[in-house]
Every structure is written in C-alpha cells, then in structure tokens.
C-alpha cells in the first residue's frame, strides 16, 4: 500500500464522492444495512445475508449492497437504508430477512416504496440532503428532520453515523477524514492546536468534564523525552454505549483525534484502552490502525509531515475501576489495575512516569471537527460553560432506546419526551438516572433542567459519560440505589477502606431496607456514611459511589421511609415485601391472589369471605375502584393485566354475602365517627368488631358519602351500596343521618361525650373556576351538581353543557348531564388526554355516549345574557416546559381564543372539605393545612394534633379514591384502638383468629393464555335513557377464563 501524501487526501475525497453518487450505467441503487453490535444482535446479519442472496439472484451488478454502523435508534434495529438514483433515501425499520427480500424486490428493483415499513426518508447529515422535491410516493413517509428522534439531534461526534462503512478508510477520508490531522500537522504549531481546543470549550466527555484544552496544555508544558496519548475506551457504566458506537462505526475519528492530541502535546505513542467485551470495537480499531499505518497516516513521518505517532490497542480485562485514569495507566503498565493517589497528575507523571493525557472516545472524536472548523464554531452551541454537543445513551423505560447527540443546554424532558418518545405502556415517568453508578436520579420535577455539566451536578447527578436510564413509576428508588451500590461493591478494587467496606455497609443497609428489615436510623446512617465515603475514598469510583443513594434520598426519601416504617414498597418492586404485587399495590391490602384463585376453584363464598377481611365494600370496589392492583399486575408485563376489579365484582354478584356474627360490645368506650362515607363506615365497622360502641353522624339523609352522592347510579346502583352499608349497621353501629355537626349537634358535645372522634367528612365543596361570569345562573360545581342529581332533586340541566376539568367527577358530571337530557356536552381540559386523571374506561364510555372532549383549552370568561350563562370564552393552550408532576405545563397561546356555546357550566377542577369546627388558621395543632385538608400528625396515618381526634379520607389525605378512604378507615380504627389501650395501659389488641380458608397453592393447571376479559355493557342507546347500571357483570365462563390468566406470582414454591 502506498503511503499517502497530503494531496492524496483530496484525490481520495474526490474519487469517493464521485463513486458515492449514484449514476446511470454505474450504480443505480444502493442498500445499506446498519450493522453495529446493536443491529447484529437484533438480526441485521440475517438481513444482510438475505439481501446478499437477493442481489446474487437478481444478477443486477448496478445495485450495491453495503454496511454501516449503528443508526442510533436501537429499538428499531435492524435498520436498512435504500437509495435509488434520483430519489430520496428511505430508511426501513425493524426489518426481518423476509421484509428485506420484499424491500429489495419491491423498492430497489421495482421502485415501489414499502410504505408500511418505511421509517423515514432522507439522511440525517445535512450535506447529504436531497435536492429537489420528494416524489409523491415518498412524501407519505416523514422526513428524517420531521421524526423528532432524528430531527432534534445535532450530529458532531456521530457525524458519520449510518453514512460510512467503518472498514473503509477511504469513506472516512471522503467525509473530510484526516483533513484535520493534516491541518494540525502542516499548518498549525502545537501551541495553536492546544489553543484551538481551549477556544472550543470542549470538556472531557468521559464524565469528569475537565477542560480538554487545559489538560493538553499541562501535558504540553511538561518536559520529557517521551509523552503518551491515551484513549479511554473502557466504557463500563450500566446503560452506556456511546463509545462503542463510535468505535464500531467510525474508528478513524478517534485515531485522528489522537494524532491531533499527539501533535498538541508532542507525543509519539498512543494507546487505546478498550474493554475486551467490545470485540467488534476492538476488531474495527485494529483494522483502522492497520489501514492508517499502511497509508502512512500513523507511524513514522505521517503524511510526509515528519511527525511520528503510532497507536496500539490495549484490551481491558473487565474491571470497571480501570476507567479511572490512574488505574487505567497502571493496567497498561501490566500491573493490577488499581488507582493511585494524585498528585502527581498524569499530565506530569503518567504512563511509565511520563507526561500523559487520557481522553475518552467521545472527546477525541470531537477534536477533528474543532480543528477543521475552528474552536469558535464548536463553541457556538451549548451553554456558556458547557459547549458543543453531548451524546447520550438513552435506555430504560422509554419508547426510543438509542443514541442521541444533542446540543448542550437542551431540557432533560425534551430528550425524554421529544427525542425519546416518552414512557411506554402509558406509565408515568418517575426519574432518570444520569451518569451511571456515579450519577444520580433526577425526578420529574426537574425535567426542565438544562443538560449541562453545572445544572446536572446541581441536581445531585452528574453528566458522566452520558448514560441516561429512564425509569417509570414501577421502579423502586431504593431498589435502584441498591442496584447501583451493588455494582460499586462488585467493582470496587478494594484498595481503600471507605470504598471497599463502606459501600458494602451501605449495600447491606439498602438490601435490608428492600427486604423489609429496615430500621429507624438507617437513613441517617446511609447519609453519614455516604458523606464519609464521598470525602475520603481514594479515587472517583469510591468518591461517587454514594451518589445514587444520595440523590434518591434527596428526591425519594419518602420511599425509603415507606420501606422502613410501613414495610411497603410504593413502586411495588421489592418483592420481599409482599406476597404478590397486586396485593401490595392495593391501599387496603386486599388479598387478590387468594380470591382470584378461589374464583378459579369455584369457591365463591370463600372468596367473598376473603374480600370482607380487608374491605367492607367489595361490591362497591368491584365497580368503581381505580384498581391500582391492575397497574402492577405481572400479567400486564406480558400482555394485559388480569381484570381484577371485575373478578371482585363477579364474586359479589354471584355469591351471597356471608353474614358476620355481630360482635358483643365488650368495651366501655364510645367512639364518634363524623361522616358516613366509605372511610367513616369502615372505621365504624372495624371499631365495632373490636367491641366499641360507635355512633356515626351524617349530614345528608342517607349514608354513603360520595359513593351515594358523588358517584352516579349508572356506575354504582343504589341497592348494591345499601346492602354493604346495612351489613355494617347490622354489627351494632348507630347511624344518625341528617345530623350535621355544628348545626344539629355541637362539636363540643361530641368532644365531651365520646372517647375518640374520627373525622371523615369528605370533601363536598367544589373548587371555583375564579373567572369572570362564574356567578351567572347555570354555573355550578360538579360536586354540587352530582349531589343534586343523587338527592333525586329536580336538576336544572341545560341543553348545551360545558364541563371543565379532567378528573372522574368531570366525567361523572358529563355523563349524568347526558342522561338528564343535555343535547351537547363538552369537556374542556387544559392538557392532553394522556394527562387526564380520570380512568381511561370512563373517558371511553363518555365518548361513546357522545360527550365531546376538547383538549388544551381553559375557560377564561363566561358570557351571559339575562343573568344566565350563554357562552364560554376559552383560551387555547399549548404545552411548554414541565411542571413538578413531570407533565408539560399548559401555556396560553397568544391570540388563540375561541368560544363554546353553553347554557350550563360545571366546574370539576377539584374539591375541598368544609369543616367549620376545625381551626382554619393553618397554625394550631388541630387545624387545616394550606391545601384546606385536616393537618395530620407527623409520622401518623390518621392522628391529628389533638389527642383522641383522628381524621382520614378525602378530608385529610385528599386521595380521592374509595379504596384509600377504606384504607384510611381501617388505619383509623387501629390507631384509635391503640390510643385508647395505651391511655388505659392495656396490652395491644390481638385480632381473633380468622377462620381458616385454604387457598389453593398448587398451580395445578397451566396459566391460560387469552385476551383480557371485557366487561359487557349496556348499549349506548339504552344507557342514555336513565341511570341503569352500564356494566353488566361477567358470566361464569368469562370469569373463570379471566381468573385462569392469573400468573399466581404469590406462589413462591410449587408443591408437587
């Protein structure tokens, strides 16, 4: 091979560019298979083989087949790019060998774009942009710039992505490869090279963020006969694969960066320390080095410049710590890779005691563009202290897994939602782990944060090498911290005590917490040790090892506390804490696997008894529960969750309610419960079962609270509710309806006459819209509207109703209004449908019933005539940055107003309790908090600031779901009983033995495959006629089949 001179670079570029253009009579079509490790592992090699066969069989010599590296969007691999003479390139995603054959025959030969599989048209690189208008056919495929994943990226490091063949040095040269090296060698002094890098503001992309130019300057200033340039390609962070992509698909860019660095500091030897787990990268590097040497681009007298520099690849043996610079250097020296203290810094004394610079792959790959286009060009994007672009490996619970290169300063949420496509399966975003095991978790409230070194550090994470692991609501942050700590424990080299022992001690505590063995004081210990480890460990690995714990403690301390105090994993991930996820997800802890398995066994009355153990309202919950259990159902990870809620209803539909033996009143104490809603009645029942005399005071004529006066009868028939309440009353609970505390009975009287009080008054007052015209006739709150409907009063319903809000009461109001004769019902919601808090099935039902949903709209003014509302003036919204909940904030669009005709406006934007007898100053012990709810004592579920007064349900916790209210009621009963016993000096309550119900533990039959059972519903035309129950209940066959879908993850060991 002849050694190249400078002018040869221009010649090669010219030749290749000509060759790359499709030309009649030469090559008329080309197909590129993207074969990075990611592509190959998804089957790109098989696609390649299939295409090769097709080319052979076609006998067409004017069709070229070529490869390229990773195209960036990993979850759509294998990717194939098709180019035809005079047409815009088309990218196909998720290509199988069979598809590849069809694409070949259909598109390459016949010129018909396979639209169903086409992912995007065009190239990412602007210089390859297609000139001329897209053909009619290809216009149907969205352009690369329109696909947010590609469109928002800015390719500098990945500039040759998908474009060139890594094995072909000529292709690299044709893309301006080695021109920067030539410029540095022929036109620039060492000082100028370093200065250019300093001007660019480039900072070390390996994680430290140390200014690269400064590092080079130090090494350049060190006097020595020998110096070294090292490339850190020992990428080992979990979830990081940026460097691998560059090494595999564009190895020459790293070599060129090293040549320039060598020129800058005066080195003549370089090493690339590449992890052996990257065999393809090692292969490509060695190939690239060989090619460069053969052409005189490495070795003696590079390009005839008189400058000598050569590179060797050193394979790392898989120790994470060898990514630390001093350990890496020690490893190259052939010793055990352990870090040593600095100073001396490698720039002064590095490899074999000589001045050395160590940069990572991404940093070096950025260098050639800086030299070629100038430091100022590079610095033109980014933030003042973080210039240029950064590559991230986005993985985890995100739609678009892949590599993204973005300008510094982009919002974190933009990467996750725009480029990443958001969280799959409709789950909520919880946190993003930045910077690998040395990094931290950033929660939803910081999605607006700018991605740059300083901002991310401020959030308690680090930029790191660019690993970005997105986590949805199912990830337990304690478990995540434990995972990363385990990684550090495994990878600690063992040299220094804090890292070797301290991390293990922290891991021991974290493991214990995840297993439900956490103790008070554990969090404080973690914090103290984290501080010590961070400040005393020898190298970066140890110093940053506590970061995942620190950042999760910073943002998710409550999760740690829930594990320690309540032995509860809020994300339902720590399986040692529960029998089955569904049960753990249920606020009332209903034994889901037990009753589902009893349905399967056909033992419905046993199943009913199981239901009643933890929930006095199973037939209510079987209808209206928001079924948190189903969100955590393991079956849902495979296809769809088991329909747990309706199986519960099936039990209560089919079996007769087992009677509870009325308890004997065994205790002297009298308890008052204020509010006969689900929470109050549950507390009353539990207290009665413990032998107390309970009186329930209810303002309204009938018991049931929101179940009776909020939820419409078409969702919850009155007789069903009545049955459950009667069962509670029959335990000897005294119920006084139409008795409002403060009106019919004095608060002081209750306080004087009863030993303890449970306040469960609910939240029966709608929040106001606070806009002009709200006092017009026809404006009403949703709670008030539904109460009137459910009281059976004559309700004034307009013909054109507008409901404002996106929660369940908005839907209830809308659907009720339709049933009461409203011709047009419109729901205005300020965000998008996926942000609506209402249950999805409710939204669907409303739509079926003709309710119109208008998103991104906020009423600003109500206009009326004759004192009655006539029109709602709305502001059109658009979504901007992220709010604290991680949802995009609706912002008014200037000048975009519209109006909706309406003669009734129902405000369903929230509700609050009305409790005149509780101190509203926000200051006293027994008072309301800022949000209008009753203030609870620290660390307690239902205690208030005043002894023997307890509170729960919507009035205190504001949770707003039936099952939470029930759960609060149970908790209140327990705490009231404990408080009384404590006051009396009695021993703690021991619950009587429950009658033994044998739960089938043997998974005797295989889990049945099948779709999730659908609840049969009343036809829409019948629904609107009245308030008949819409959902008809499961048949036996359907219920049995559904129960058989349960994976029985509660069965830990199958007995044979």
């Amino acid at each position, binding site marked *: 091979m002849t050694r190249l001179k400078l002018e040869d670079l221009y010649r090669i570029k010219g030749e290749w560019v000509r060759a790359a253009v499709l030309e009649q009579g030469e090559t008329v079509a080309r197909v590129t298979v993207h074969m990075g490790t990611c592509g190959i592992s998804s089957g790109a090699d098989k696609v390649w083989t299939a295409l090769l066969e097709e080319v052979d069989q076609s006998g067409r010599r004017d069709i070229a087949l070529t490869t390229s590296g990773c195209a960036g969007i990993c979850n759509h691999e294998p990717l194939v790019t098709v180019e035809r003479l005079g047409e815009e390139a088309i990218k196909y995603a998720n290509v199988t060998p069979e598809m590849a054959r069809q694409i070949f025959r259909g598109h390459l030969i016949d010129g018909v774009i396979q639209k169903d599989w086409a992912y995007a048209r065009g190239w990412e690189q602007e210089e390859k942009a297609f000139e001329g208008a897209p053909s009619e056919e290809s216009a149907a495929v969205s352009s690369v710039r329109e696909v947010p994943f590609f469109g928002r990226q800015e390719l500098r490091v990945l500039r040759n992505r998908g474009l060139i063949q890594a094995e072909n040095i000529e292709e690299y040269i044709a893309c301006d490869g080695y021109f920067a090296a030539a410029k540095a060698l022929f036109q620039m002094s060492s000082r100028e090279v370093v200065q250019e890098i300093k001007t660019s503001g480039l900072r070390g992309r390996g994680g430290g963020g140390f200014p690269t130019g400064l590092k080079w300057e130090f090494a350049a200033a060190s006097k020595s006969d020998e110096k070294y340039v090292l490339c850190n390609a020992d990428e080992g962070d979990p979830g990081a694969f940026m460097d691998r992509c560059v090494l595999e698909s564009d190895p020459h860019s790293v070599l060129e960066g090293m040549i320039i660095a060598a020129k800058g500091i005066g080195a003549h030897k370089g090493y690339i320390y590449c992890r052996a787990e990257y065999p393809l990268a090692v292969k490509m590097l060695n190939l690239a080095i060989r090619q460069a040497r053969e052409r005189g681009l490495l070795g003696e007298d590079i390009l005839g410049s008189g400058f000598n520099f050569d590179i060797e690849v050193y394979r790392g043996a898989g*120790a994470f*710590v060898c990514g630390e610079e001093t350990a890496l250097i020690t490893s190259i020296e052939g010793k*055990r890779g*352990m870090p*040593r*203290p600095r*100073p001396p810094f490698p720039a002064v004394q590095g490899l074999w005691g000589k001045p050395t610079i160590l940069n990572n792959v991404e940093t070096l790959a950025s260098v050639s563009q800086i030299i070629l286009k100038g430091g100022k060009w590079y610095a033109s994007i980014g933030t003042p202290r973080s210039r240029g672009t950064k590559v991230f490996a986005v993985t985890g619970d995100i739609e678009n897994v892949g590599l993204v290169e973005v300008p510094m300063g982009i919002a974190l949420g933009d990467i996750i939602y725009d480029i990443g496509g958001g969280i799959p399966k409709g789950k909520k975003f919880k946190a993003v782990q930045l910077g690998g095991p040395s990094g931290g978790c950033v929660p939803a409230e910081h999605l607006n944060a700018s991605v740059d070194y300083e901002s991310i550090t401020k959030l308690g994470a680090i930029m790191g090498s660019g690993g970005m692991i997105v986590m949805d609501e199912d990830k337990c942050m304690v478990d995540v911290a434990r995972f990363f700590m385990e990684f550090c*424990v*495994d*990878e*600690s*080299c*063992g*040299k*220094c*005590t*804090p890292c*070797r*022992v*301290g991390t*293990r*001690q922290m891991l*021991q505590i974290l493991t214990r917490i995840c297993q439900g063995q956490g103790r008070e004081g554990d969090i404080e210990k973690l914090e*103290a*040790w984290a501080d*010590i480890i*961070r*400040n*005393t*460990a*020898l190298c970066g690995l140890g*110093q940053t090892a506590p970061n995942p714990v620190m950042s999760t403690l910073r943002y998710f301390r409550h999760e740690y506390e829930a594990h320690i105090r309540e032995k509860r994993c809020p994300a339902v991930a720590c399986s040692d804490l529960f029998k089955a996820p569904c049960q753990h997800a249920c606020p009332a802890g209903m034994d889901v696997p037990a009753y589902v398995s009893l349905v399967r066994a056909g033992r419905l009355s046993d199943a009913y008894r199981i239901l009643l153990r933890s929930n006095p309202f199973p037939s209510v919950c079987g209808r209206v529960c928001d079924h948190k259990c189903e969100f955590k159902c393991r079956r849902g990870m495979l296809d769809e969750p088991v329909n747990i809620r309706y199986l519960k209803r099936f039990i209560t539909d089919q079996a007769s309610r087992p009677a509870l033996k009325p308890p004997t009143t065994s205790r002297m104490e009298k308890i008052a419960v204020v509010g006969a809603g689900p929470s109050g009645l549950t507390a009353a029942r539990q207290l009665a079962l413990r032998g107390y005399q309970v009186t329930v005071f209810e303002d309204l004529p009938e018991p049931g609270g929101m179940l009776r006066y909020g939820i419409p009868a078409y969702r919850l028939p009155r007789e069903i509710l009545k049955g459950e309440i009667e069962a509670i009353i029959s335990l000897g609970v005294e119920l006084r309806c139409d008795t409002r505390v403060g009106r019919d009975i004095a608060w002081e009287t209750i306080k004087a006459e009863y030993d303890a009080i449970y306040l469960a008054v609910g939240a029966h007052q709608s929040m106001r819209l606070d806009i002009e015209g709200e006092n017009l006739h026809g404006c009403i709150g949703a709670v008030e509207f539904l109460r009137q409907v459910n009281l059976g009063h004559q309700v004034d319903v307009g013909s054109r109703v507008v409901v404002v809000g996106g929660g369940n009461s908005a839907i209830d109001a809308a659907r009720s209004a339709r049933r009461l004769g409203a011709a047009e019902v419109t729901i205005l919601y300020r965000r998008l449908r996926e942000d609506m808090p209402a249950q999805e099935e409710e939204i669907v039902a409303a739509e079926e019933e003709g309710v119109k949903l208008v998103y991104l709209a906020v009423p600003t003014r109500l206009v009326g005539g004759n004192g009655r509302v006539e029109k709602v003036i709305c502001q059109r919204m658009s979504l901007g940055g992220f709010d604290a909940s991680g949802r995009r904030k609706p912002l008014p669009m200037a000048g975009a107003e519209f109006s909706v005709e309406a003669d009734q406006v129902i405000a369903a934007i929230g509700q609050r309790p009305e409790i005149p007898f509780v101190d509203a100053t926000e200051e006293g012990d027994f008072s309301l908090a800022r949000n209008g709810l009753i203030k609870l004592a620290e660390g307690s579920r239902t205690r208030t600031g005043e002894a023997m007064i307890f509170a729960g349900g919507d009035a205190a916790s504001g949770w707003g779901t039936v099952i939470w209210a029930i759960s609060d009621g149970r908790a209140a009963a327990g705490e009231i009983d404990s408080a009384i016993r404590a006051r009396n000096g009695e021993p703690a309550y021991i619950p009587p033995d429950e009658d033994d119900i044998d739960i089938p533990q043997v998974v005797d039959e295989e889990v049945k495959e099948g779709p999730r059972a659908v609840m049969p519903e009343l036809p829409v035309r019948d629904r609107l006629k009245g308030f008949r129950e819409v959902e008809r209940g499961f048949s036996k066959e359907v219920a049995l089949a559904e129960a058989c879908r349960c994976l029985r993850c509660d069965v830990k060991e199958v007995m044979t």
Partner: protein
Amino acid sequence: MEPKPDITLTIDGNEVTVPNGTTVLEAARGIGRPIPTLCHHEALTPWGGCRLCVVEIDGAPKLAASCVTPVRQGMDVVTTNERIIETRRTILEFLFSERPHYCMICAQSGDCELQQLAYQHQMDHLTVPPLDQDFKVDISHEDLVVDHNRCVLCGRCVRACRELAGQNVLSFQNRGGRTTIGVDLAGGLGDSTCVSCGLCLQVCPTGAIFSRHRTHYAVKGKPKDWLKIESHCPECGLLCPVEYTVAGNNLIKIDGRLTGEDPVRGQLCRKGRFDPMKTLGRRLLAPHVRDDGGWRQAGWDEALQTVAAGLASARKNHGDSALLGLISSGCSLEELKAFKNILTDKLPFHLVDAIDGRHYRNIIAAMDDGPHKEAPWSALAEADLILQVGADPARTHPVVFALIRRAMLENDARLAIIGPENALGQWTSVHLPASPPESAMLISTILNEIDPRSRSKPADTVRERWQPHGYGYLVKLIKEARNPIVITGPDMTGLDDSSGLRDLISLTRIKGLLPDQCLRLILLKPRGNSAGAWALGLAAGQGFSETNGFRAGLLCLADENDLGLELPGLDFLAVISPYWPEALADGVQVLLPKTRWLEAEGTFMTADGSGERVCKRVLEPPPEVKTADLTLEVLAGLKGSA
C-alpha cells in the same frame, strides 16, 4: 537532581518549612502532630489505602490522605477536628466490621496496630454491623500463619515482599470486599516461592500474619513488661540490625530494624528471624563426663579437672605436638580471642585453628599478590551483572539473595549462575549447573577467553560441554557488563585447589576495582564470624590435617552439629558447646556447656571485614551455663592442665 526548594505551609496553625516532596504526614509528624496510620510504613512506598490519616486541607470538604499528599506552598492543614476524628473512627469501624477482628481470641492481641488504633479512638463498641465473611487460615508454612480473617488489606506485606525482599510471592487477589492477599498464583504459603524472610510478618499491623513460634499470648505478658533490645544478628556475618523482644526470659520475636541507614535496612531473613526461636538441638545444661561408656552429669570442678587431666596426660605421653584446639567461627570475637590466646599462651596447644580455616587458606593462596578488600554488599544495588559462582545465598545468606533480587527488579541487573540449581534459578539470564570442580574449570576457560594473556588454563572440552547451556551468552554478558559483581562462596573456597578461585578473582579485576580499592567480589563465608576468626589469625597456620600426632583436643562450638570436616582420631576430646554435639557422639570424653550467642554479649566482624558490631545479651543463660572464655580462663588456671 536539582536541589529541592523548601516549602512553607501551616499545620494546625503552626508555620512549618520542609523540603519539597515531603508528605503532609511527614511534615505533621515532624512537628509532633499525631496522625494515625495503618497502611503506612516508613520503610515502604506510600500507599494511601486505609484512609485513616486523612486531614483537612484548605478547608476543602474532601479529606486528603496525608501519607500520599505532598506539601504545597501555603497549604493550610488541619490534622484534627471533630469531623476528622469522626471520619477516622468510622473508617476504623469499617475495618473492624469487615472481617472478624476479635481481639480477645487473637494471637496478636497486645501487639497489634489495629487494636492500638481502636484504643486511641476510644472505640469501645462497633456501631457498624459486622459483615459476615469467612476466610481460610493458611497454616501450610513452617514459620508463619496467614489468617485472612484478620487482614485489613493494607498491602504492607505485599509491598514489603516486593520492595524489601525483592520477591513477588504476595499480591492482591480478587477485588473489592473479596480481596485477599494471594500467594504466588494460588495455594498456600508453605508450597510457595516464599523464602521465609518474615518481612510480611514484621510489617503486618494485625494478626493476619503471625509467627508460629511463641505465639500464645500467655507467654507474652503485657507489652509494658516487654524488653526491647536493639542489637545485631550474628548468624551469617551481615550483622543485620535487629530488635529482640523479650518477656521474662522468653524470646518473643525478632524484628529487623527497618528504619536505619544500613543498606540492608534491617530487613532480616529466615535465619535471623526464625532460627533463634527454634530449638536447634538438645541443650547442654551442665558439664558431663563419660563414665564406663555412658554420660554422667558432673560438677564444673570435676569436669574441668577431667579435661585438664586428659590434656596433660596426652601431652605427657605424646609430647608437645599432641594437643589440637579447634573453634567454630560462629563464636564471638571475645570467645575466639580467649580461645586463641589461652590455648597458645597459657596452655601448651600445638595448633589452634578455626574449623573453617581451610577456606581462608585457599583465599589467601588465590590472592597471591596479597590480600584485598572485598566488595561491600551494598555494591549489589549498583551492579548491572551479578555472577554467582559456587554460592547459594538463598540458603546461606538470604539477605544477599534479597539484595540480588532487588538489584534485578529495581535496576534491571542480570544474574548469571555457575553452580548447582538454587532458589534464584528461575530469574537467571544464564545458568550453568556445574559442580564445584567443573565451576573452577569453567571460570578458567572464561577468563582465558576474555583475557587470553591471563595465566589461566583453558579447556576446550569445557566450552563444548557448556555451550548448550548458554556459555557463549555468559561470556557476552561478562564482556558487556559495566559494573559486574561476583559472588562466590564455600563451594569455591572449599576446593582443594585454589586456582579456580584465583582465576575468578582475576576475572573480577578485568572490569577494574570498586571505589575504595575493593575487588568486585563478595565472598560468602561459612560462618557468621569467619571474617573475625580469620582476621584474628586463627586460621593463619597450617591446617591440622597435614600434621599428624594429635592425641587430644579441645573443641569449642557455636551451635553447629555438623563440623564439615573430619577430626583425627584422638585419645581425648573435650567439647565446649551450647548443645549436645550429637554427631561427635563417642569420640568425646567431657562436655562443657556454653552460652548461646543470645545469652552473652559478643562482638562480631562483618563478613566483608569492614567493621565490628556488638551483639548484646538478650537472654539470661541457664544457671549452670557459662561463657566459653570464662570456662577457658578457669581451665587455664587449673593445676596440671598446663
């Protein structure tokens, strides 16, 4: 090296000026600020692993390990405050929690740096839960036990093994919490390349490596009752500085004095550290006389009278040339002098000789142009080629062995061996496994090849015979060497013919002399005080074997059993010895007990003849046991013995 400028910094408010390159720890200790350390050891390179020595620098939140932090101009160091103490205590607790450090059942209790640190930090209980780990205890070694359960992974043993012993037996294995100190590639210490120098034992701050000799702490008593005696080890003539630890009259341990200026840095070897702890034979605790074919314990008077009578009788019957006096060169100069003076001046001995006298006579014969100074062993550190002929330092002078290894590791010195296989074999550049006579012929041939004008007699067959073993390469190495050192020993000096030795000396002179007119030659001598005995002229005369007519003898031993020579048939033999001379068995008529070197102060001459060192009395001798010079004085004074 340009002189390093001084640096001024502040330590706990005190302004201190120290040379550049000083560590913060050194600077702080220099002004008496106490900083705890564990992985740090003055004789070893800094490590920075344990992090107990952390200090606050310029108020930074990150604490710095003072042992590896160089001073910087204007640095403001705080060595102690509440945060630092709390941090150190937690790190200490981490160490205690990591493995089962239960002091009350540890052999090293009372002599343990980890335990001492716990006392210093008032760590009366653990707030960090123990991590349950179980490691093996390695009891495969004769002198040492390695209990990984007590290891704090400070790496001192690893560094000592490499940096001081010149060995690479110990290293870290596995990583993180599973790290252990590994031996060679795996396996037990007893089956390893360990040369039992015991440096690892000495530098181990805990009970992870402990001695198998006198380990039980019941014999150790409390450290405050221990007697520490600084002295020198007379075992091989290197006279390494040592420290003996004695409790009651028990020798508990022997340590090298690692922090002196001696080039050997008191690293000590198996012979100096462990041999004195061992029982070398049946101790002779009282005089014995032979009676009717058996031994009978006798009083000193009776025994000495018997000796006097035996000697007198031989002289009476056989004349003046009948009496032979032989003494071991393991004895102190005081004993040697007394032996020589009393036997020649006061008693009518015809010949007084050192047991190893013939080596001396050979050496003198080989240096036919007069005696020369030998190279000091510190010269090894500078050598680029070490040629070892007929010597086995690993066995006879292990510290020299370590110096050779260090020269190889630190200086890239080459090693060539002529002679039998030995422990250095695996590292040699060339090894010619010749027997001693063959070695002599080889040397002569090599000399002739390098310097054809020399008087040596080459033998062609020798070259052919050794060519396949690397003869040519050896000659090349010798020719190219700029600063070679030759080490030879008893195998060469003990030959009947001194011509090989003479040629070897000529060979060393080709590259010139070392400074101070020293030959490039290190002579390993048979016993610890050979140089002393020879300097006293004890071996100056002819050896006894050439003279007939000896009928009675007096033999003074140090601790040898095998004399390495055949005694002439004698009518009467009295032996002064600390042990029963089992090998001499029937030939002895009277046994007189004598102190071991540990039991009497004595002066010894360094093997290269450059100086003398006093070896102090470490133990009280048993009640009936006297020094040899005292016994001889009494004997000389007895009526009838002269």
